[in-house]
């Protein structure tokens, strides 16, 4: 298990398609030591803001730093949980309401590791990756997204 890992691109231009999720799942059917997959998907909400209704989020990132940070998070999580696989995809650019902007996917022999790792990954991605969401409103105004 001591293969050397290097930063991977996590960014996807525009929304993440449901077909990408199906394809990722299908790609793991040959890994017959996997017993459970845990997936988290972030979807853009049509929130009401003071000056209008959200119609889309436009994501930007400090890409080099985000990829390095995502790599560090991956290494931490691989060290902490007995995982078979881990994948992170985050949108850049415009994602419409109802579309997917985040796809986190973990797999393990027994379910607990995949579930706990997925949970921790999502929290760390939201807290630590230099990514910003600009919520575009139906009034042509915008507000900067704030994570809870």
């Amino acid at each position, binding site marked *: 298990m001591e293969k050397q890992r290097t930063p991977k691109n996590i960014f996807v231009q525009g929304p993440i398609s449901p077909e990408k999720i199906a394809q990722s799942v299908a790609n793991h059917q040959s890994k017959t030591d996997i017993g459970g997959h845990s997936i988290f998907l972030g979807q853009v909400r049509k929130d009401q803001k003071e000056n209008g209704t959200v119609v889309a989020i436009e994501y930007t990132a400090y890409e080099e730093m985000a990829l390095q940070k995502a790599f560090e998070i991956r290494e931490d999580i691989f060290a902490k949980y007995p995982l078979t696989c881990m994948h992170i995809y985050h949108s850049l650019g415009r994602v419409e309401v109802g579309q997917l902007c985040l796809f986190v996917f973990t797999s393990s022999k027994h379910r607990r590791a995949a579930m706990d790792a997925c949970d921790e990954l999502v929290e760390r991605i939201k807290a630590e990756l230099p990514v*910003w969401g600009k919520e575009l409103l139906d009034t042509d105004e915008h507000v900067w997204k704030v994570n809870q």
Partner: protein
Amino acid sequence: MDQKIRIRTFGMIAEEIGQSELVLDQLDSTERLKEFLYSQFPKLQSMKFSIAVNQQLAQGDEKIPEGAEVALLPPFSGG
């Protein structure tokens, strides 16, 4: 001194400054950079942001080495 420093800006900080990159005369610490920014862009005083030096978040006042990559990062809101 004619050393220059490149400052990348993101999110609402980029929006406020109106540029995605600033080129300034060398400033040797993050506190001195902040003072400069506050004087040039007073609205930044009421905005939250971190400073990254070579892709690491500065904790307190940190030196800015020559040729460092510096960035102004408002609160993250990915996902």
